[in-house]
Structure formats: structure tokens, C-alpha cells
């Protein structure tokens, strides 16, 4: 009974505020109890030098977890499904990381988490004045990536239809790694040609695209005119964008059309919309929800950095559907003051780490 009460926060109604430490404790109970737990985590219990169910009480305590995400390159996806669902979980998909730093990592996306993530996304879009009832054009990967699913959900939940242009980021990265920039260029042109067909024949009110594709689009005057004439909001995501390019897009290329960044990670199962106001000219992203939080740490000492300092971004995901704590992302960022009451850090000036786990990072176009 006590356990059931403690776990209730995992099922809290979408519009209620949850206590973050309560959420941490409930997630530990859920994912590490033999009855409800996640096989992936139960298998690793022995390797932990702490007891998650008694020792991990706060968001800060999540930092006790070792770097486990490399195991997600090989773990069977069945082991990621908590037993507590009793075989009734609705799996929306298995999604993979970009494979930027080696073999891709896999996560499961469950329907109950999708509801939570989308509730947050819709709230964020409402706050930023995203339109409803318009069609979306999404330039970005499908296949093993979560991008296509998420942009489809975005569009659908705002009563729009999503037009997709397919895009394989791993191929682009491979071209760049092999010094075949020309081939990557050709491929991006190929993608953009398809976008041109959609923009030229359909009514499009919103665009979502990775920065390099957006930049290509911005070079083509005909496409720029097609965007200016109908698009009401542009969202960039997938890789970082420098503030000068962002300002050019906002002020020179698409004046009057709001341009927002969306900073997320497949390994966090969630994304943050850019704060409406910049800080020192940089785009800022607040930890998107109690379930998905960021910590900026000194890469050498692993200690959280102070506001104003730069460090590596660590992401935590906690929900009934998944536990992905203390994952060092491939990004560096400056920590900025978080909104009052928020537990996770807020990040600005996000950039790719030069090298990560010894493998050079080729960010490519997504």
C-alpha cells in the first residue's frame, strides 16, 4: 500500500505539478523492485556500489549512476521494458541515437511517456504562439530515429498534417568522415529538392528542420519566398546553431517569422523548446520537465559547474516508462540561471564536444 502510494507520482495527471525528489524516489522503487523493475537495471544492480532504492533520493543523487549508456548499444530492447506494465505496455517504437560516437544506442518509446512529452511540448508551443490547424513540413530523419514520430505527433496534436522529407543523417556523417564533402552536398541538395516540391504545391504553416538544411533552404531565393509567404513558425533541432546564423535567419532571411530551437536527445526521450528570450545573445534551453533534467558538469572533475560557467551537458530521464540517469551528452554548454523553483540546470550556447569517448564527433547535418 505504501509502495503504491509512493509510486503514484509516476502516474500523476498530466497537468499536476510533481515533486521532483518524490519522482526520483518513485522511479528508483519502480525500476529496481523485482516485481516492477526493468530487467536492464536489475541486471546491473550488482555492479552499483550503492542501493538505488534507499540511497538515491534527489535529482542530485542521480549523479551516482555510472555511465551506462554504452550498454544501450547492445542491450536487447525487451530488457528495457519495466515488468510492472505486466506485458500491457504500448510500445510506440524503438528509437536509435544518431550513431555519432559509434554503434547506435537504442531506447523504447512507450505511449504513456509520449502523452507526457507531448503535453509538455503542446504547453511550450502554446506559450510561444505556435499556430494550430496548419500543415507542417518536417525535414529530417525517419527510420530508426525518433524525429519523424515526434514531428508527426507535434503536427497531429495541433490539428495539422505533417509532410515529411526523408533524410539519412548517418550517410551524411559517413560522407564527411570519409572526406566526401561533395557527396554530402549532393545528398543535401537532393533532400532540399523534395522540400521544394512540398513548399511549391502545399500550404505549409510550420517548418521543422536541422540547421544545415535550414541554411540550405535559406540560400534558395525561390524557397525563401515560398516560406515567407505562408510559414508562421520555424523550429530548428538536431544539431546546434551558432547565434549569428540564428540572428540572420530571424532578422534577414525570415523576418517576422518566429524561429525557435528545440534541444533534445534520443537518450533523454525528451526535448526543450528555446526560451523566448536569449541570454547574452545565446539561445537558452531550460530543463524541459521534472522528468527530463540537465546538469552541466566539469568534464574533468565531474562536478556541477556554477551559473555562468561552461561544461558538459548531462541528461537525466525518469519516468514510469524508462530510467536513463546521468547520461553525458556529446554537448558542451554554458550554465545559466534556471527559472525559479526548477531543479535541473538551464543551458545556453550549446555546442558539440570536440571529441567524445575518444571517437571524433562528426555532427553532420543532424
Amino acid at each position, binding site marked *: 500500500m505504501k509502495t503504491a502510494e509512493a509510486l503514484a507520482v509516476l502516474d500523476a495527471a498530466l497537468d499536476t505539478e510533481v515533486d521532483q525528489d518524490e519522482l526520483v524516489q518513485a522511479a528508483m522503487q519502480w525500476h529496481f523492485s523485482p516485481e516492477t523493475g526493468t530487467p536492464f537495471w536489475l541486471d546491473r544492480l550488482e555492479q552499483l556500489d550503492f542501493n538505488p532504492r534507499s540511497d538515491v533520493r534527489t535529482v542530485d543523487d542521480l549523479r551516482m549512476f555510472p555511465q551506462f549508456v554504452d550498454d544501450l548499444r547492445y542491450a536487447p530492447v525487451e530488457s528495457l521494458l519495466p515488468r510492472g506494465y505486466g506485458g500491457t505496455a504500448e510500445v510506440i517504437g524503438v528509437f536509435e541515437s544518431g550513431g555519432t560516437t559509434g554503434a547506435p544506442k537504442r531506447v523504447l518509446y512507450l505511449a504513456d511517456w509520449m502523452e507526457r512529452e507531448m503535453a509538455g511540448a503542446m504547453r511550450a508551443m502554446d506559450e510561444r504562439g505556435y499556430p494550430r490547424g496548419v500543415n507542417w513540413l518536417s525535414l529530417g530523419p525517419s527510420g530508426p530515429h525518433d524525429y519523424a514520430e515526434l514531428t508527426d505527433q507535434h503536427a497531429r496534436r495541433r490539428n495539422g498534417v505533417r509532410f515529411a522529407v526523408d533524410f539519412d543523417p548517418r550517410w551524411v556523417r559517413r560522407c564527411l568522415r570519409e572526406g566526401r564533402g561533395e557527396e554530402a552536398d549532393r545528398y543535401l541538395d537532393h533532400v532540399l529538392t523534395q522540400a521544394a516540391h512540398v513548399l511549391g504545391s502545399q500550404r505549409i504553416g510550420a517548418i521543422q528542420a536541422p540547421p544545415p538544411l535550414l*541554411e540550405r533552404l535559406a540560400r534558395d531565393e525561390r524557397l525563401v519566398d515560398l516560406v515567407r509567404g505562408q510559414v508562421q513558425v520555424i523550429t530548428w533541432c538536431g544539431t546546434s546553431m551558432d547565434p549569428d546564423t540564428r540572428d*540572420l*535567419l530571424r532578422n534577414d*532571411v525570415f523576418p517576422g517569422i518566429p524561429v525557435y530551437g528545440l534541444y533534445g536527445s534520443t537518450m533523454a526521450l525528451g526535448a526543450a523548446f528555446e526560451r523566448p528570450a536569449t541570454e547574452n545573445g545565446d539561445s537558452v534551453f531550460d530543463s524541459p520537465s521534472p522528468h527530463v533534467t540537465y546538469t552541466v558538469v566539469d568534464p574533468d572533475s565531474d562536478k556541477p559547474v556554477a551559473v555562468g560557467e561552461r561544461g558538459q551537458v548531462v541528461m537525466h530521464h525518469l519516468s514510469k516508462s524508462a530510467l536513463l540517469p546521468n547520461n553525458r551528452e556529446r554537448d558542451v554548454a554554458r550554465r545559466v540561471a534556471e527559472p525559479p523553483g526548477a531543479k535541473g540546470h538551464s543551458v545556453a550556447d550549446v555546442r558539440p564536444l570536440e571529441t567524445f569517448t575518444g571517437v571524433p564527433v562528426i555532427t553532420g547535418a543532424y
Partner: protein
Amino acid sequence: MKTAPTTVGTSWPRAGAVQPAVIDALVPEGTYRTTRRETVRDVAGAPLVELAQVPGLYVTRMLDRLRGSQASSADQPRALLAGRLRSAGSAFASDTLGGLTPQEHHRLVARATGVPVSVVRTATTTIAEALTHAVDTAERARPRAVLPRGRQHASNSGAVVWRRRGRLLGVNASGNHPAVHSLWLEALALGYRVAVRPSRRDPFTPYRLILALRSAGFADEDVLLLPCDHGVADALIHGSDLAMVFGGDETVDRYTGGWSRTPVLPQGPGRVKILLTGPWEPHLDAVVDSVAGLGGVSCLNATAVLVEQDVRGFAEALAERLSALRARPPEQEDAQLPCLPMAEARAVEDALRHGAAGCETVLGDVVAHDLGDGSAALQPSVHLLDDPMAGQLGLELPFPCVWVAPWSMDRGAAPLRGSLVVGVSTKDPALVDALLAEPSIRNVYGLDRPTWWLPPGMPHDGFLAEFLMRSTALAGT
């Protein structure tokens, strides 16, 4: 995004200053102060200035637009253009530009690049003179068959007109020696727009140079400074009609290896060689000057000397002369040797040691001389080889570093292949003819002058006009 014309001038770093100034991009709208900037440091690692980093989107959109029309100088009367270039030369040599006096400019370039300040000052004169003579130099390159400029009416029998191959020249500059910026100025005399990506080590020279050109009447959209990272540099080359690329073998190979759709004129290592037939003693001064003049950092400095008589005696005499050069911080008036950050100096030393494996070291067991502030002067080195075809003869390092090898008449011109300049002492006209007949040798000088002799009007690696212009048949119009 756009800012008013630069008004910096109070914040250039001087001794004790803390706040570095910013070098803005120079763009059609005037200046562009980007949010993202890179810190340019001196050879000891101290910050000197912040350099704008122009984003790729800006470069591609702007170049796409500029390629669509020609420079406003394209149809100007030659006298007007010559006057503008002349006054730009005088402004560059004498005026305070972007808040920098020539003296401050020279000191900054010396501190940033490690090139001795006296060499930097001479480079300013070289650039000013190249501007003064740019129209004449371009005119010297005009084929005789071509009609003079401005007359384009062909007779029935046809005529030849000289036309630009494009409208916009992109320049990816290096920072080894400031006078690299004397090499693209003919493009302005030929009516090109020029967009320069400065090196991170010396953004100062093209910055003041382009401000000088603007002050002399060149339109803001005709002379551009676009500091940017490597990825955006690719966009700059791609977005230009034609491009000049300065750099080492790797850079030049990358841009000329079919990567770019843009025709690229490479400006790589010079691999300059000297050939001494007969007694070498009368030419020792010229050799020392060719090796160590200009601080030994130019592509026109001699890298190898081939000697017919007493090669060992020559190598030892050369070593003795070069060993007299003293290590000094680059901003000191008596500095003669180039300096680098300690780590880079050690890397050069390693490259030398690696390259010199199996050769006899005559001078330069230790090359990097610690100046005690995080920087090092690079002291000369002389190595003796036994084969004039040895690969080391092409190993060009950024300091007075020379390879000496024996030569005999039966070797002919073959060991001198692949040289920007061959300096030769010989009484044999057939040998000179053989050198001139070798296509990979660009210039041939006697040893009454150093190999880096290059007055205005002489081609460096051909006239730039050979790359920028083409002859077109015109008839019946």
C-alpha cells in the same frame, strides 16, 4: 547585425592593457561584428584581439548576390583606378586605420606571427608598392593581340578582347608572411571583387589593407574581409568565381584535388633552390640572404642549395654565417629569426628531426630557443645530404632551414625541379637554358640578388592576370 563603421582605437592591446579590441568582418554593409569570435594570441599565448567569425549562411548568401553583378571598379578608367590604388598604398603605409597606426600594426603582426618586426615593416612597403604599380603590372600581363581596355569594337577581320573569367576572387590567405597580401592586388586592377579570408595568425594586415582600399574609394562590396572557420572557408571558395589558396601542401592539395568546382590558383610552398657552379665563395652573402632574409618564413626563401665544388666547406661556411643570427623576441628591432609558441616550435623541431633522419647535421641540433615567455625563436639549421635527388630538398619549414647537397654537371636541371625560384651562379648559358626549359621551375635568377627579389611588375608564379583573364575573339559587332 550591422554596426557603424569601426570606431575602435582606444582599446588595442598595449603593455598592461586588458581589454582586447575586435577585428570585425568587412562586408558590403560596412562592418559586421559577430557574436562568435576567436581570440588571436601572440606567440607567448597572450590575447591580442578578438576576430569575428562570420557564419557560413552569411557568406553563401552574400557571395551568391555579389557574383550576380560586377564590381563598380570594373569599368572605371584606368587612370582613376590607378590613382585609387596608389592612394590606398599610401594610406596603408602611413595612415591610422581601424584604430591602428602603422607602428602599432607592425608590432601586433610581429607579436602574433613571430615574424621579425623589421621584416613586417618591409612587407608593408612591399604591399604599398604593389598597390602603386598594380595597374601597370596587370597591363604588363596583357597579351599583345588584345585591344586596349575600353575599345571593344571589332573590325571585320576580328579582334581580341581581354575579359574577366569571373567577377569575384576569393582569397584564402596564410599568415606566414604579411606580403602574401601583395599577391592578390592585381585582381583589383583588373576589376575584380575580392573577398579575403584572413589567417588566424595575421588578420591585421588584410584588415588594414582593406580599410585602406575603402578609404581610397573602393566600394564596401568590392573588397571584403571574411574571417571564418575552416568549414566556412570552404563555403567562401565554393561561393567565389575563382580562388587563390595559400597554405601548405595539405591545404593546397585539398582545394586543388577536384574538391572544388571553383578554379583554384594554389600558392603553396616555394621549394626555392640555389645552384652554385664553380667556386661558391663569391656567392655566400647571396645564399645567406636568400635563406634567412625575410625571417626565413617566405615561400621565396631558399630551402636547398646544390653545390658543385667543396660542398662540405660550403655547408660549414654557411652554418657559421647563419649561426651568427641571434634569438630575440619578434618585436625587437634587431630580431632576425621567426618565433612561434613553444609547443609549435617543438613540433617544427620534431618535424625537422624526423625529416633529417640519416642526414648530417651541420648546424641546428637544437632549433627551438626558449625565450622564457612561452614562445621560442627558431634558430637556423643546415643539413648536408649526399644526393641532390634526396627528398629532403623539398622539405620546407617555416624558419631558416636549408638542405645542402652536391651537384655535378651530369645531373643537369633534374634536381632543381619543382622550384618557385632557382638562383643560379654559372657561366654556362646552356645551363640557364636547361633551367628555363624545365616547366616546373617558375623563375630563374642570377645570384646578384636574393631568391626573394620580387619588385612590382615581375611575375611571382606567373602574372595573376594569367589566371584571372582570358582572351576572347570578337568579330562583326
